[in-house]
């Protein structure tokens, strides 16, 4: 028989089976829903949601639509994921490097941290940080100010709010500084390549990023004042802070546990990456006269990153997906707000779960694409 046909037939059969199975499930769901009088449709998204959410990045209350509630949940999921990823990366890199430290105390401490946090289920850690923190934190009226303006209480972390005047001028000056730094860097590189001279780019950059925004304060009419949280009494033993910005303890506990947990995995990726660079590479770099800083920056890190990035991408994806455990401690993420309350109020289980699944899929794919792009950028470029 034709070899080509032999290859195609099994694949055709597989496709057919997949289509049949899916068709069967869809058909069955349709019949069952019809029998039980359940309508299918996405029209509910424009209806009034009539429930409130504790914490939202955009303006929202119960008079907005279910779609708006979906956006609130989605943004909260993205918020906790982004903050979690930033902290997990910083902590992961520090711990990963610390594990390779020649100092016995430091590397043992790092190893203990990794083994401890990696091996306890995440949900348990979230409960621990949330309820332990709730029990340990003071009531608003008993809280002492941190640095005079921050209040960490059982009802949340209260921080001063910034009140800007002419904020746009300040932002323009900041953008101008960044553009100037990029231009100078490109110029400095050219100078080095053509004339072999090294310009003090780092110090120029530091200077620019401070001086330009400072000028905007002095001559641009920018001013900044702080609104400091003030204690307000609700009842005999019940207080809150008014003014300023309040970060709910649910957000803090969730970010903390996600970052601490994921950082252990990232630390191992970093350690593997650094150890994966051959010893000969460092010795060769030193022998051509590079100083230790340059060895790390120009020889070790570019090679280590290639090993670190792909598994770290997985950890970023895990963190994003794990953020759905938020529902357990009342952080209003996508699962709690949309696949929780909205699902309950509308009864549109299939629609809402499918939207939620699609959303997580899109989030994960976006992170993957971003990290793959970065990975390609730092990969060995064969000329």
């Amino acid at each position, binding site marked *: 028989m034709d070899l080509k046909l032999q290859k195609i037939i099994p694949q055709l059969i597989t496709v057919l089976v997949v289509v049949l199975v899916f068709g069967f499930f869809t058909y069955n769901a349709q*019949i069952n829903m019809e029998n039980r009088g359940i309508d299918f449709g996405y029209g509910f998204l424009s209806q009034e949601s009539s*429930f409130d959410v504790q914490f939202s990045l955009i303006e929202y209350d*119960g008079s907005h639509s279910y779609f708006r509630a979906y956006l609130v949940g989605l943004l909260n999921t993205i918020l906790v994921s982004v903050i979690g990823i930033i902290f997990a990366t910083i902590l992961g890199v520090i711990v990963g490097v610390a594990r390779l430290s020649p100092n016995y105390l430091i590397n043992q401490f790092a190893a203990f941290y990794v083994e401890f946090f990696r091996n306890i289920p995440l949900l348990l850690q979230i409960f621990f940080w949330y309820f332990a923190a709730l029990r340990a934190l003071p009531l608003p009226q008993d809280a002492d100010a941190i640095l005079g303006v921050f209040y960490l209480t059982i009802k949340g972390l209260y921080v001063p709010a910034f009140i800007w005047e002419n904020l746009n001028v300040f932002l323009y000056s900041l953008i101008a500084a960044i553009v100037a730094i990029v231009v100078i860097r490109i110029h400095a590189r050219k100078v080095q390549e053509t004339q072999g001279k090294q310009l003090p780019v780092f110090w120029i950059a530091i200077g620019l990023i401070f001086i330009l925004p400072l000028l905007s304060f002095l001559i641009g009419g920018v001013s900044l004042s702080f609104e400091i949280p003030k204690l307000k009494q609700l009842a005999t033993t019940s207080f809150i802070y008014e003014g300023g910005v309040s970060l709910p303890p649910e957000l803090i506990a969730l970010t903390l546990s996600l970052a601490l947990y994921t950082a252990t995995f990232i630390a191992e990726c970093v350690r593997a990456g650094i150890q994966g660079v051959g010893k000969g590479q460092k010795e060769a770099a030193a022998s051509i006269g590079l100083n230790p800083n340059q060895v790390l920056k120009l020889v070790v890190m570019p090679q280590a990153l290639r090993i670190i990035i792909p598994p770290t991408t997985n950890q970023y994806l895990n963190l994003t997906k794990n953020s759905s455990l938020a529902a357990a401690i009342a952080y209003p993420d996508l699962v709690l707000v949309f696949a929780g309350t909205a699902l309950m109020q509308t009864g549109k289980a299939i629609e809402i779960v499918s939207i939620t699944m699609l959303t997580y899929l899109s989030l994960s794919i976006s992170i993957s694409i971003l990290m793959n792009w970065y990975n390609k950028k730092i990969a060995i470029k064969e000329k």
Partner: protein
Amino acid sequence: MFKYVKQLTSLVAMVAVLFTFTTETMAAKKSKTLKNTQKKGFVRCGVSQGLPGFSNADAAGNWTGIDVDVCRAVAAAVLGDANKVKFTPLSAKERFTALTSGEIDILSRNTTWTLSRDADIGLTFVGVNFYDGQGFMVRKSSGITSTSQFKDGISACTNIGTTTELNMRDFFNSKGISYEPVAFEKADEVVAAYDAGRCDTYTTDKSGLAAQRTKMSNPDEHIVLPETVSKEPLGPVVRQGDSVWEDIVRWSLNAMIEAEEYGITSANADSMKTSDNPAVKRLVGAEGELGAAFGLDNEWSLRIIKQVGNYGESYKRNIADTGILPDRGPNELWTKGGILYVPPAR
């Protein structure tokens, strides 16, 4: 081509299996649920994850509560044994999906009967086994004695996926008070967070507040405010589309309430067969052919009363004697000043 005979046969077999499946589901016969229940030998009942007085499991896994008794009554009527029930603990969020997907056949989980739930999502409410209303719990030390003392910025702990979330918004909006809703997925976490001081008030159905108060580290430090901010008729729910099963569950509950009305108890049910009152005789199966309408025998209601007891016995055993709500309030018979009034079993 012989190479693929094996694959092809398995494919054909699979397709055949799929199709028999489909025809089975499409053949929605009259009360499939009753037939299936009798075939399985137990009633599949969805309950809460632990609400004292309503549905709560002890250390040995025995379920008790007035919601549990509804399922037991159906088991007694349909299978002849009140213990032939398989209980499935469900969160507020999971409960309707579990019922509509066919995982359970009765949902008896302190569920509020509302128009949208009844009409929209493939459910049918069969009656009310507890008249409740939403209330607020606060710490005694706060000095709050009425909801009129609530101020802007108050934080309220509650469950997601319940009517509570919606009522809370209606209440605070109507009073013009800004509030911080802190909504958890499970009741245990709500209680833990409120108990720790995360919220100023804890809001849910008043019966729930009374029951959860017993779980607090120091119950005496908390009070339930007198105001009731919503109507919460709680009752059992069945899937839409099986009217016979719906009738069985409805009349199992009604039989318990009517039995109390006529003074029939688990202790005297047998002797009531010789009563002079035809209504009593019908309920204990000594007169009429009431069971036949559901495809059951005539002693279905007698078994309920003997094995589970009447509504008053169930209430006393589960709610009054446990100290949750000793006063029956609206859940008293209509003849005694309450609003429990069921259609006659005849």
